[in-house]
């Protein structure tokens, strides 16, 4: 899950395809040539995946909640959120062990983790826990 806490409105939200199965809110790397995203292991050029809720099957009868669209299949169409400097997001696709507020974070296999060797260049800063209606392990980060 990824929540937009304070974001620029009006920016593009490109529709892209996944090249592997992943979870909503994961950090991804985008290849413009193929229009596909894959789990990122990088500190720069990272985007995040979000999904559009669908109203298929039972969802046409019962309104689905935000927590029901977590798993993303390989080859699915997803929304690519490009973080812009100055924004705040909250995600649960993060390893918080050993993280303290103010630590730099980067992506590793789709998850955000503490940045060590790339700390000087990592674009995200860990802020702290975020209260969410659907998930308990949500944490806020800031985009430098």
């Amino acid at each position, binding site marked *: 899950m990824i929540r937009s806490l304070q974001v620029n*409105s*009006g920016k593009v*939200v490109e529709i892209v395809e996944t090249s592997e199965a992943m979870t909503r809110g994961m950090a991804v790397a985008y290849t413009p040539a193929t229009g596909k995203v894959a789990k990122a292991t990088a500190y720069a050029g990272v985007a995040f995946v979000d999904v*559009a809720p669908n109203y298929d099957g039972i969802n046409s009868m019962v309104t689905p909640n935000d927590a029901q669209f977590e798993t993303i299949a390989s080859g699915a169409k997803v*929304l690519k959120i490009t973080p812009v400097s100055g924004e705040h997001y909250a995600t649960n696709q993060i390893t918080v062990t050993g993280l303290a507020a103010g630590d730099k974070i980067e992506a590793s296999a789709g998850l955000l983790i503490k940045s060590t060797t790339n700390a000087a260049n990592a674009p995200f800063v860990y802020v702290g826990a975020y*209260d969410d209606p659907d998930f308990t392990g949500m944490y806020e980060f800031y985009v430098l």
Partner: protein
Amino acid sequence: MNTEISSVLAQDGKIVEWAENVKYRSVNMTPENAEISEAMDAWLKETVGRTGTDPNHEIAQMIMKAITPAVVAGASEVIDRAFDTEAAIGEFDDARWEIAPKNTIKVHDGIVGGNVNRSYIDFKSVAPTWKSLQAETEVTLQEIRRGGYRTVAELINKIREALDAKKMNLLLTALDGAVGATHSGYFTESTALPTETSAQKLALYLMDVADENTNGCICFGQNKYIQAISGLTGATTYLTDREKSLYNANGLLKQYAGMELFGYSGTRKLPGGDAIVPSGKVFGVAGKVGKVATRGETVVLQETDINSEKIHIKVNGYSFGYAITDAEKAGKIVVTES
């Protein structure tokens, strides 16, 4: 369709009545409210949901109508009885309030034709603590197309309730802070619940500090404490028939030793985990302890982002100031939580 959204907006309090009707008594809609729902639904689903345009920002206007001071101020009886909530000032104004001075004129036993020592009364004023509450949220156009009028009714209710709860929490925090350990109305309790000794002490204290402006003493806290007070020895003796049936209905008394009792949920919390009414404390108030003023009017802004197909709603300027002008009129029991 004979109901226009703008005519609904023009009526004071109508939008709140409608939103609450939808939320709490939707099987029992009044014909008028049902018609509003219909108009709302058609407008939301067709105009807003399908074209993303709400040129007059009517969703924002509806939320604004729901949180104007007149609607929100009456939210809680306890706040109304503990604070003077009448004042409302302009957005760019400030206020100073007078603290009721003690009568310190000393009277001497004298004879005609001479002097005695003068004594003085000191008038003090206090500056309120200003708070400006703000909340932001977003709603997708997809949700508006699907949920129609219910989505908006729910949004109006939730935003209003959240602001109310936060305001109440801030005021109670101020009240709590005003009764410190050195305050003469501060009573500690070594057990987890108030006992007869501490409840009687609080009642006696309130009775003593009550003056001609006091309109009854009140005692409030989380339900568990009010329940404990209701179960104290002798509390249920000499009840009238009406009080008995109330007591039988929920196990809580209306009154104890001259204090009217008000219980609050211990499970309802603010996002973030703080209880709205703090745990571990039972408050007592004899008359107005402070003042609350509303400053300016709430601003609700909305913008549609067609890229992500969402409406961003921003509520700010829910601004109010408070000050404790007579801390002596408040007391509290602090229990020992395990």
